[in-house]
């Protein structure tokens, strides 16, 4: 009897430790979230910040980037001709302004005067020409496709260039906001000892220089004060951006004061709720920003060739339980590609394939699948929650879905080779609506195959009038929805938590990716306001 009591006491003790520990980590009480520091908060010119993110620093050559995840690093060093605003429209950066020819076959760009690269080389029209030529022709270029329509760059005077185009390309200013428009010092380009992938040295015009770089781990930047053309940028003496892949490790490091900013996984509702709670407590601010990234279940039209089958899958999916239940409202339910407020969004859109299990069954029967069908849904390992709900919903109409976790490399390889029929994926908007459509139709992207979508996109992208072009993209997106290339689930928001000493963080997120940051205007509050 005594032995049994002893065991019970030991078990109760162990349970108490676990419960007490869990209680210690419980979120703070309800209440309004802490507001971010005001934009005019005095900042510490000698301040430093450490940012924990999931984007991997693999190199600094903007014209040969491996993933968009390099941009939070490269954009601190290399400015572009333009940048994108919150609605993904081009705004001035190293280009002060631009003008498209009436026929759309050339773009004249006025350059910002008085800018020089960190190595002292003046930024001028010749530098633009050298960079565009490099981006188009360098072996392994990842910018060549974006510049495909650029036949050449003409230097009109030291502060003006003209892009000669093979076809009307009114979206070129938006495309130049990406790596294709990044400007590298011509002196560095001519110096064979400069390895831009590992150490860009003084090759940029951006607010920071690279002080330390450990591939796939972290990069430390120091302010490029003397040559920085943008007085509002580069407000930190030192900035470290650290790759921390594990959600909990980032959270722990932030709470322990080892990080000043931490990325929060937008597909982990509990992590987001905890981040919100952290923002309601003391010392931290929770940030949420809209992005154009769509969580969707891709349906590869070259594998699921019968449109009735794709339609049946779409009609079997009820988004509400996923968005409200599983994701607890941490993303925005959507039935179309473009988010409200983003290019290509259709205001009066009617979902062509709303949730209708009966119709789904009928379509399957019509397609000759009276007994149902098998479908393999792939997902990146660790992101199984949404596919599991999809699996249950599809089972209700007779579709037996098997779930396959894969690494990103496996899924990328297999999907583009038509080895997978379906993949739960985040469709991120590209720099322009035309580029986004290209991604939807590309075998390396969503893999949709449709002549009418391609024709509509071609027309839209060459339309000079902005209003007519926008209408063209709306029509393109209607056709994309009609083709059932994917089941839209919801548009993701970007979620971050920062300490209340981080000033200007609301300028950092970039709307085309949930992980994307441009930290050029971020600072640390001065000692006296802490």
């Amino acid at each position, binding site marked *: 009897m005594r032995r049994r009591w*002893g065991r019970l006491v*030991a078990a109760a003790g*162990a349970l108490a430790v676990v419960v007490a*520990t869990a209680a*210690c*980590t419980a979120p703070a009480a309800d209440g309004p979230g802490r507001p971010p520091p005001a934009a005019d908060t005095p900042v510490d010119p000698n301040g430093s910040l450490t940012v924990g993110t999931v984007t991997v620093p*693999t*190199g600094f050559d903007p014209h*040969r*980037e*491996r*993933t*968009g995840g390099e941009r939070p690093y490269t954009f601190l060093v290399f400015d572009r001709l333009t940048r994108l605003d919150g609605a993904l429209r081009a705004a001035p950066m190293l280009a002060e302004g631009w003008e498209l020819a009436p026929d759309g076959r050339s773009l004249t760009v006025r350059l910002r005067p008085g800018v020089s690269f960190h190595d002292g080389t003046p930024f001028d029209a010749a530098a633009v020409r050298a960079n565009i030529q490099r981006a188009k022709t360098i*072996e*392994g270029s*990842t910018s060549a*496709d974006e510049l495909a329509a650029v036949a050449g760059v003409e230097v009109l005077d030291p502060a003006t260039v003209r892009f000669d185009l093979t076809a009307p390309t009114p979206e070129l200013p938006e495309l130049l906001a990406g790596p294709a428009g990044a400007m590298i010092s011509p002196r560095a380009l001519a110096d064979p000892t400069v390895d831009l*992938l*590992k150490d860009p040295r003084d090759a940029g015009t951006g607010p920071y220089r690279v002080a330390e770089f*450990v*591939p*796939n*781990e972290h990069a430390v930047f120091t302010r490029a004060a003397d040559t920085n053309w943008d007085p509002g940028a580069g407000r930190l003496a030192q900035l470290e951006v650290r790759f*921390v*892949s*594990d959600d*909990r*490790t980032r959270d*722990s*490091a932030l*709470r*322990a004061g*080892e990080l000043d900013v931490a990325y929060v996984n937008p597909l982990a509702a509990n992590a987001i709720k905890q981040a919100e709670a952290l923002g309601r407590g003391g010392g931290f601010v929770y940030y949420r920003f809209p992005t154009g990234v769509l969580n969707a279940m891709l349906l590869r039209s070259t594998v699921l060739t019968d449109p009735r089958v794709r339609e049946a899958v779409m009609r079997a999916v009820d988004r509400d339980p996923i968005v409200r239940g599983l994701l607890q409202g941490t993303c925005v339910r959507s039935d179309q590609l473009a988010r409200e407020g983003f290019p290509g969004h259709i205001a009066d859109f009617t979902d062509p394939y709303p949730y209708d299990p009966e119709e789904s069954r009928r379509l399957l029967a019509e397609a000759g699948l009276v007994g149902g069908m098998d479908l393999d849904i792939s997902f990146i390992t660790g992101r199984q929650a949404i596919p599991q709900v999809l699996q249950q919903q599809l089972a209700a109409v007779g579709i037996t879905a098997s779930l396959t976790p*894969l*690494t*990103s*490399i*496996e*899924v*990328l*390889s*297999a999907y*583009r080779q038509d080895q997978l029929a379906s993949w739960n994926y985040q469709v991120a908007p590209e720099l322009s609506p035309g580029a986004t459509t290209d*991604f939807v139709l*590309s075998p*390396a*992207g969503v893999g949709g195959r449709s002549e009418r979508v391609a024709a509509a996109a071609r027309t839209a992208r060459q339309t000079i009038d902005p209003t007519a072009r926008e209408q063209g993209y709306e029509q393109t997106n209607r056709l994309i929805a009609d083709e059932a290339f994917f089941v839209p689930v919801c548009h993701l928001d970007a979620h971050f938590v920062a300490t209340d000493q981080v000033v200007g963080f609301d300028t950092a997120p970039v709307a085309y990716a949930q992980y994307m940051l441009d930290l050029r205007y971020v600072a640390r509050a001065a000692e006296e306001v802490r």
Partner: protein
Amino acid sequence: MRTLWRFVVAVPVLFVVVSFGVFGLVALAPGDPAVELAGQGASEAAIARVREELGLDQPLLVRYGDWLAHAVRGDLGTSIARKQDVGELLLSRLPATLSLAALALLLALVAGLVLGTLAAVRQGGVLDRAVSVFAAAGIALPQFWVGLILVVVFSLQLGWLPATGYEPIGEGVGGWLTHLVLPAVALAWLPAAELARHVRSATAEVLDRDHVLTARAKGLLTPQIVGRHVLRNAGIPVATVLGTRIAQLLGGTVVVETVFGIPGLGSLTVDSVLARDMPVVLGAVALATGVVLVINFLVDRSYGLIDPRTAEGARA
């Protein structure tokens, strides 16, 4: 001498067997590293070019032979994901992992020996039961969970120790040690528990032997009996277990380094497997194989030191 000879023969054979096995497994796994390396949305031609540059278009045996020919000359190649020399990359990560594993081993050894011996000496008592509970919990609780709880309590609540990261010993012993304490405890948890059980079992068995009873009859105190007569006899099974646990310990660094954000060999290996970075995976496996072989060799040699009757000369 015979053990040394066996070791010398075993190293190259095992190296080839293990490296070819790993090469085959990684090469046959689905997914093409060239797709990721070529960049998002790259054309088929661009991917083919990357594949050719990396030699991924060659047959598996040709690629393996090429790697082996370079590896035996000490050239482990270049990381395809990081563009760094693999040897340098492994060496840069080695100190963190070795520090972590060594500290964890020390903790496991001390905790396992002390707790196991005390439990054996006090069989059936409260201490024995407490050690049994500890051992059961140590085996049942996953290392990542133990790590998270340690972080919550000692970093976030008490603020005594850092939650993540690693500081090289060259930057200060204090910083090095404080960064390693929590991950080392998390890593030592399982081997300490297993070791405590083995030590208890081996010690309890020796305590019942005639020579121990004789020692008791001669009036020796328990600490003297344990020190002089018990631990040495219980040492061989414990050394055997310890040898296998060290290999497990190296495997455990994969999880612990991720939880604590330590840039060591474990996290490097995981990243490289996911990226299909074959040269790094092979280099890491070669290194781990070498470490395990050396440990096994040392364990073999330790038998003779613990109990001279088992030494090679004595057996002959």
